[in-house]
């Protein structure tokens, strides 16, 4: 059928074909509805569900640069942490309104992202890993040294966040927290989905597919990379701010190398370059950590390592890539 369509292809089918690429599938709608289940089925796990939504948002921000633009990073916790401290310090200064705090943190992280992007776009491969790693470590040590501001190793106690829309109070059970984090994740997901299906998203895929060709079709691809890096940094900042606002505490580990590495692990588990991989990866990682830590608190990371190796060896496009290949096998033939 595909063959017949291509044979008498015309402009209309070309347009329609491109439009089809970004259509919502029933799977996606079911997936998002399923994310509401914790409210009804596992209310005792709502705090974990909030953690997952925050990690998923962070992983989503990394997917935009890693999965779509091909920028590898080992230091993205830098923006997560900057967002967390920005929201926390704003709250400490007396302003605990959640949405403006979120916005403030996103803009701050995005600004730092924009400034560092000038360095990021000039290097590739190992040098890029080292630059991002270096920037991450630098920020962590800076936050450690500035303990008068950040609380250093003691961390910061954040004043309780005001009710959302002056109505939804943050409750002990985490209903509001999960609703809030899930809503922010969903909005950021919609924006990301729009972005990757735009002409800009196409340009990013072009950069990932063949960066050498981009200048030869007239693309100023450094500007594209700076733009997506800034957007990604802002989104990571939002995730950090959500953590600060919902847990009322910020510790130095928001900036840690482990956080930068874990988010890559989540993405690789879920599958890069498909947005949903970020969410699926975050669910697997944090549920596994929760369950495995209950069995054996000291060695839970052993199992994550094992899972990671199995996925990389047998499902190179992540768990979602594997599933979509199974589902699409018939279509591709």
């Amino acid at each position, binding site marked *: 059928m595909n063959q017949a369509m*291509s*044979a008498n*292809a*015309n*402009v209309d*089918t*070309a*347009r329609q*074909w*491109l*439009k089809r*690429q*970004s259509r919502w599938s029933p799977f996606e709608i079911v997936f998002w509805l399923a994310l509401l289940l914790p409210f009804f089925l596992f209310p005792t796990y709502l705090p974990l569900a909030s953690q997952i939504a925050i990690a998923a948002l962070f992983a989503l921000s990394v997917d935009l640069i890693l999965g779509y633009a091909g920028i590898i990073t080992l230091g993205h916790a830098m923006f997560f942490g900057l967002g967390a401290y920005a929201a926390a310090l704003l709250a400490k200064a007396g302003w605990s309104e959640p949405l403006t705090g979120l916005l403030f943190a996103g803009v701050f992280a995005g600004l730092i992202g924009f400034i560092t992007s000038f360095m990021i776009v000039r290097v590739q491969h190992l040098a890029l890993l080292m630059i991002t790693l270096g920037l991450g470590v630098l920020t962590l040590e800076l936050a450690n040294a500035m303990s008068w501001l950040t609380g250093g190793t003691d961390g910061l106690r954040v004043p309780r966040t005001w009710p959302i829309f002056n109505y939804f109070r943050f409750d002990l059970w985490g209903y509001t927290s999960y609703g809030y984090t899930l809503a922010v994740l969903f909005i950021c997901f919609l924006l990301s989905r*729009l*972005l990757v*299906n*735009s*002409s*800009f*998203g*196409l*340009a990013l*895929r*072009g950069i990932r*597919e*063949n960066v*050498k*060709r*981009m*200048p*030869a*079709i*007239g*693309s*100023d*691809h450094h*500007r*594209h990379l700076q*733009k997506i890096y800034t*957007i990604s940094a802002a989104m990571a900042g939002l995730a950090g701010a959500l953590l600060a606002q919902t847990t009322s505490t910020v510790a130095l580990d928001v900036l840690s190398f482990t956080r930068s590495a874990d988010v890559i692990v989540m993405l690789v588990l879920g599958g890069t370059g498909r947005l949903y991989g970020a969410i699926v990866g975050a669910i697997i990682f944090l549920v596994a950590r929760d369950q495995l830590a209950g069995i054996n608190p000291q060695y839970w990371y052993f199992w994550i390592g094992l899972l990671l190796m199995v996925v990389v060896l047998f499902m190179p496009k992540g768990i979602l890539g594997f599933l979509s290949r199974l589902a699409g096998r018939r279509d591709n033939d």
Partner: protein
Amino acid sequence: MTDQKEIVLRTDSLSKKFGALQVTNAVRLALPRGCRYALIGPNGAGKTTLINLITGQLKPDSGSIFLGGDDITGKSVSARVRAGLTRTFQINTLFPDLTPLEAVTLAVCEREGKAGQFWQPLSAHGAAIDEAFETLKSIGLAAAATRPTRTLPYGQQRLLEIALALATKPRVLLLDEPAAGVPKDESAALFEVIAALPSDISVLFIEHDMDIVFKFASRIIVLVAGGVLLEADPEEVRTDQRVREVYLGKGHHV
């Protein structure tokens, strides 16, 4: 107007050294509007290096490049493309996982400065998509438009190289061995496509097959050891004694 046509691309004593090796030696070129020039020369003559210099992949040690009268010597590769100077590559330099339709649409969006817009879906750029499809159709790739590039036969990938370049609306098109690796019978068809390109585009192509060069080039530039040995009509090149000695004599098969 006399038979002296408007010069679109000009290089002025362009030189480049790799270490002690003079790879480009005071090259002067002038491409008139709508020309079909061939650049020939033995292996290592510096043909690709010359194209890299003109399009900005390499910086010349000395000399200048003018596009339509403007000095573009200091401009970046992408700025030159936006000014109308585009190339294709000897080795396929494509986007393997994009479809031809997506790749050419991207090139059109870049040309129109729309590639940075992330707030509306690609399908909102209907005119760009239509133009991309028409470009693909014009060189015979309509049927392959929505298949991933990596699944296309090699010959179609060579055509896509040209389609991507055309989408930038070039004034000057430099084709680095457009038929490299294509079987001889197919390469003639490929050059028919090149010959049929819009008549206001100036084309300079590198090609080793002398039958094709003599058939499709209106004028031939012979490059030897980085310098222009001769620039002349095909008939003159065919009979020139020096060309026979340095070029046709060495491993040329007819």
